[in-house]
């Protein structure tokens, strides 16, 4: 075995007693500390909602269970959500796994390739068969489903006014607790649209009556499918379309032929 393989093997080995040289402890420690820092950035909401010591212990366990096989720390952590779900010490905070899932989704959106808004392309809607057209969605556009109110948990983790005790936080926590109870009692997933209009990812809770439309967008189905979804309420199509454009969820229209 080459020294390079041996050093890497020892870095990933949790048992410091198996480190052949004292210096290996430094490299192992570097790996753990760099990993904890990287995970706290990627999973910033999970980090904010947990006690720091608990997060460090969780991240350390994950780092030793899931080898880093990517060059970039930003690409590491895809299975963190699943790891949290199966972690025996986290059964009392069942929402954390979904918060991790949201963090991972948002991180991908923040890094997604830029797109240019193409207003003129909407003219195709008047010229072409909608079966041959699809909407060009915003960078990172996706429809995700969560049981817990992850959008509110995200707010709790990041909004400055919720980080201090006071009336604003008190009202918010009351609302959040009700949403959490509802989620546990109903266990019915809710849909959230995520997208990046400019530089910051956004979230939108989607009601069941328009979920189908966003699902078509997410699937990149033809515009004919989207029109069909409004068949019973055709007057709703135009305002819906205007809102998607003004909120920068739609960047244009393109032909599939």
């Amino acid at each position, binding site marked *: 075995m080459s020294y390079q393989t041996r050093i890497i093997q020892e870095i990933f080995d949790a048992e410091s007693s198996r480190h052949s040289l004292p210096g*290996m402890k430094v490299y192992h420690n570097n790996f753990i500390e760099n990993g904890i820092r990287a995970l706290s950035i990627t999973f910033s909401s999970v980090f904010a909602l947990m006690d720091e010591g608990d997060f460090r212990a969780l991240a350390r366990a994950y780092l030793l269970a899931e080898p880093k096989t990517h060059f970039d720390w930003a690409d590491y952590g895809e299975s963190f959500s699943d790891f949290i779900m199966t972690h025996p010490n986290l059964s009392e905070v069942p929402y954390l796994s979904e918060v991790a899932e949201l963090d991972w989704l948002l991180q991908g959106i923040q890094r997604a390739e*830029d797109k240019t808004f193409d207003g003129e392309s909407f003219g195709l809607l008047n010229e072409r068969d909608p079966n041959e057209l699809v909407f060009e969605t915003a960078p990172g556009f996706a429809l995700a489903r969560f049981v817990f109110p992850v959008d509110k948990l995200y707010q709790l983790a990041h909004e400055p006014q919720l980080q201090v005790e006071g009336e604003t936080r008190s009202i918010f926590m009351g609302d959040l607790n009700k949403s959490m109870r509802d989620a546990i009692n109903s266990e019915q997933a809710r849909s959230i649209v995520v997208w990046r209009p400019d*530089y910051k990812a956004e979230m939108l809770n989607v009601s069941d009556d328009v979920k189908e439309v966003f699902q078509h967008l997410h699937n990149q189905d033809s515009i004919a499918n989207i029109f069909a979804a409004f068949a019973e309420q055709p007057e709703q199509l135009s305002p819906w379309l205007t809102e998607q454009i003004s909120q920068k969820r739609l960047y244009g229209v393109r032909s599939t032929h």
Partner: protein
Amino acid sequence: MNTSSLSSKPDACIGVGLRHLHYDEALAHNQSQTPIDFVEIHAENFFAKGGITQALLSDVCEHYQLSVHGTSLGLGSNLPLPQQTLSQFAELVKSTQPKLVSEHLCFNRAMIDDKIYHSGDLLPIAFNEASLAQTVSNIQQVQEAIGRALLIENLSAYLDVSEMDPYSRDSMTETEFLLRLCDAAGCTMLLDLNNLIVNALNQKHADPIEAVMRHVKQLPQHLVGEIHLAGFSEQKVAGFIVDDHGQAVSQQCWEVYKQTIKCFPSVPTLIEWDTNLPPWATLVEQANKARDIALQQK
């Protein structure tokens, strides 16, 4: 790209590492009021295809000359260069046209159970003929991809690889290795004085500054293209001082810099501070101090 500062401060070229915490302040200042000639970014932080980092990068390039510092190519690795990472690195260099481009004399990964495991660290290599051939080949591939020469940084190391593998004993000193590497690959050196000091302290040299200067004085003037200055935290791990760039430039490092800059006048100098970050103003003070020393030694 703003070059007015360079024309107004021709006698020394001082940069600082630009980290996320300082983006707003660094970009808010008028370049002519900031004694910073260039900023160094870690290449991997700007590999995202889009989003705010690309917009930030564009802003940074409007304000400062750039140094692109790679940390993930693992040029001394036995494994082939990662083509995707190399493409991202080359694209970044081509799009920003930086003043300086650098990487490290290290490896970072190995194949275990048919998977490549990545340490995310800068790990030491053996200073022997096999390492030299491998590293030269890798550097040449990178240089071909980016269309220019690399600066290669000397490393802080916490173990001697020959103790891990008797078949990988050093057959030359680090200095000899670096000189042959530069000659064969056509690259130059990024001389990290803090790394030399950390190594000298960890190796318990009686006079660490003398040990560092012995190394520095063996380097030909034309081979040193950049100097790094940094500090380290007092907290040790397993008895080792760790090169964490978590403090102001150490007194030993300033002392060594005074002597070194005499040997390599006008070589760009960078203040590195990566963890336990201070206010931007403190970094600027450190840059001012480096400039004063550089000008005094002329």
